């Protein structure tokens, strides 16, 4: 066990070495292990249709996790994540079905709402200087309230253009949703930005050492505002993907999705991103999200009760954080 831990926690050569470094190897190994274990537990696991299911579930959490990754890279955390998603979801769908807005415009409004909420988080963190944990604890309640003020019923019978991303095409016996492709594209884009742009470097710098970042000439406040706003945008996109998958705008998607919240954070930490900031790879998060998805799916196939599923997710979170903390101590 300790060999495993030390492999995934050993410091490797920085940000630029995405696949060269072992930073990805640990999470990848964990994913492989999980797949192997669940494959032995149920013969339905290793099938095209099952993988489709996993991908569909990962689609939403995986996108939420992109936003969460950006925030955690700056040593912050976002507890309001799935509720921003819910707010965007009901706005997108509600404006279309109830207020007769053009569905495409409504999508954009939904995305903007997500971004605006993210900006609110960012402002509270930078201007009022509240710890992100507290800020998002507060805004999650605000978002919840706003969602339920806007609607208490599920909004359904949505126009095709909004559920389009839920449509699938087939590859090697697996149905892949267009939404999953969108998610993957987003991962690549974020990977590029973090790796090859000034903005990306600034995120890592602020996360590693905000004071040094400021003294190095980086506008730390602007970076943080940007990170929280972008995260909000990603949560809103996740909302669109959720709508695409379920076909409805559900005011409770934030709630059942407090699980999604936890799952997103778990994905980020399992993927090797440090809660202390400044360290982590975006593709690690993708693998982390897949691990979470595989676990959920595998446990379901094994007939494990949903309460135990939640329990196991909780254990995974603790394991992931423990590994992160241990790696900070081993010098």
């Amino acid at each position: 066990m300790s060999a495993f831990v030390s492999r995934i926690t050993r410091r490797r050569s920085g940000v630029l070495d995405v696949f060269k470094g072992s930073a990805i190897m640990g999470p990848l190994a964990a994913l492989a292990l999980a797949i192997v274990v669940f494959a032995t537990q149920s013969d339905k696991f290793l099938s095209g249709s099952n993988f489709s299911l996993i991908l569909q579930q990962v689609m939403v959490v995986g996108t939420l996790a992109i936003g969460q990754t950006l925030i955690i890279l700056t040593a912050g955390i976002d507890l309001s994540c799935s509720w921003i998603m819910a707010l965007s979801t009901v706005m997108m769908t509600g404006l279309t079905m109830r207020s007769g807005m053009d569905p495409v415009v409504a999508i954009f409004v939904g995305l903007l709402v997500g971004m605006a909420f993210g900006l609110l988080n960012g402002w509270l963190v930078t201007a009022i200087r509240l710890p992100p944990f507290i800020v998002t604890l507060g805004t999650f309640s605000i978002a919840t309230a706003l969602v339920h003020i806007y609607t208490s019923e599920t909004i359904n019978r949505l126009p095709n253009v909004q559920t389009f991303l839920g449509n699938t095409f087939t590859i090697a016996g697996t149905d892949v949703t267009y939404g999953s492709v969108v998610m993957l594209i987003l991962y690549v884009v974020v990977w590029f930005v973090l790796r090859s742009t000034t903005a990306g470097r600034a995120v890592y710098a602020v996360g590693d050492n905000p004071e040094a970042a400021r003294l190095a000439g980086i506008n730390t406040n602007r970076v943080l505002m940007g990170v929280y706003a972008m995260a909000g945008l990603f949560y809103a996109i996740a909302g669109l993907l959720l709508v695409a998958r379920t076909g409805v705008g559900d005011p409770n998607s934030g709630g059942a999705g407090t699980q999604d919240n936890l799952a997103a954070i778990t994905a980020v930490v399992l993927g090797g991103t440090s809660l202390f900031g400044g360290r982590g790879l975006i593709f690690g998060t993708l693998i982390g999200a897949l691990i979470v998805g595989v676990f959920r799916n595998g446990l379901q196939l094994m007939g494990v009760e949903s309460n135990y599923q939640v329990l196991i997710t909780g254990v995974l979170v603790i394991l992931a954080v423990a590994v992160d903390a241990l790696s900070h101590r081993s010098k």
Partner: protein
Amino acid sequence: MSGSTSPGNVLLEMQGIGKTFPGVRALEGVQLTVKEGQVHALLGENGAGKSTLIKILSGAYRKDEGQILFEGQPVEIRDPHDAQALGISTIYQEFNLAHDLTVAENVFLGHLPTKGGRVDWSTVKARTREILDTLGVELSVDAPISSLSIAEQQLVEIAKALNRKTRILIMDEPSALLGEKDLANLFRVVRSLQAQGIGIIYISHRLREIFELADEVTVLKDGRYVATRKVSEVTMDDLVKLMIGRDLKDVYPKRTVEQGDVLLEVGNLSQSKLLRDISFQLHAGEIVGFAGIVGSGRTELARAIFGADPSSGEMRIAGKLYKPHSPAAAIRNGVALVTEDRKAQGLFLQLSVRINTTISGLRRLTRLGVINFGKELTLVKRMIQELRIKTPTPSFLVVNMSGGNQQKVVLARWLSVGTRIFMMDEPTRGIDVGSKSEIYQIMDELTKQGVGIIMISSELPEVLGMSDRIMVMRQGRIVKELSRAEASEETIMQYAVGSAGA
């Protein structure tokens, strides 16, 4: 005057010790022999390997190669237990005392004797009293640690070691936090330990102490064994030469002052109560040293000029008005600040040399925000070469580097953005003599290129060795300006503490 008793049998022999950490060869072929009743000094600069060597002896690390012989028998020290079983005790700079417990409780920490299931306090107190008396220490055994001074706490640590039947006592920079009087007491205690036949390994880079206390001295450099000498047969210069490989005199480059145009003008700079009405000029090609005691406002001054903190007053760069609202603005104007705590405020420890170097100058390496890796790598490699930064690759994480190399990375950062006005706050703090000397060379080169340097330093030899002019600050003001010719350690101190009638 070195140790009084002639040492006895060989107690400890370390041969061919090697230790590797990821990316760093910390020790190579190191040897050390300690005799009973001998004070053996271990000398070397920061990063020489002294810490690593004693951690291997005390069981905190495990050696990768080599042999350890105790009283002629080969032994394995796998963990602190093994070390303690052999009678090896270590006193680190950070003491391992329980603050709210008493002296006696600490001396017996972890092995309180019991009688019939209950703690035998009378034995504990009596024995502690015995040990303290042997050391000639007058502390009460019931005094809580929190009520003791640093020097007294150190004595309790020594008592703790004696209680464990120590054969070899390792003392890591014991004098770092002590004043003159406590130091004398410490020496007395060390000599009495010697008389009891204990072998003492004494780590310090204060040569004066070594000459007063030690019988033999072993010098390490860059993780390698250099030499062992009898203290009576060697001079201070010899030791320095062994430590850094060159003469003491050559540490500071000989500077020829070519004072150019005024680069920076500071007029009536003030900041609440911390800075009061500061005015001075910095010329191209000169190094202005800022001396003063802790709290005199020097760091605040540098931060204000750098735009890190707000201030009032007027500043001009090359004649143009300069009012930085943020460090970014200062950087755009060619001003740089090398902070006094590079780990906390200068470097991104978890990131690479490459990123740390280019972080402030990405604009020159990007197009539409996208970084040109080729250009960046070329720049970083050039900096590594020019500054002789020791790193296996540009992707090496800065946290794994020695202090001197870390500081060079910071300098590389500012050099690569074309800085004309350098402010360096304690530029060589915590850096080995070899790297210090390299940094001084770099500073000298810079001034030859027309750069102006403001150097804040608490090391008077450094201030005197490097500055062309010296500003002494006290309580937020510049109280005196001295030229290099008229300055001396005493004069500077006098103005710094206010006893010069200033």
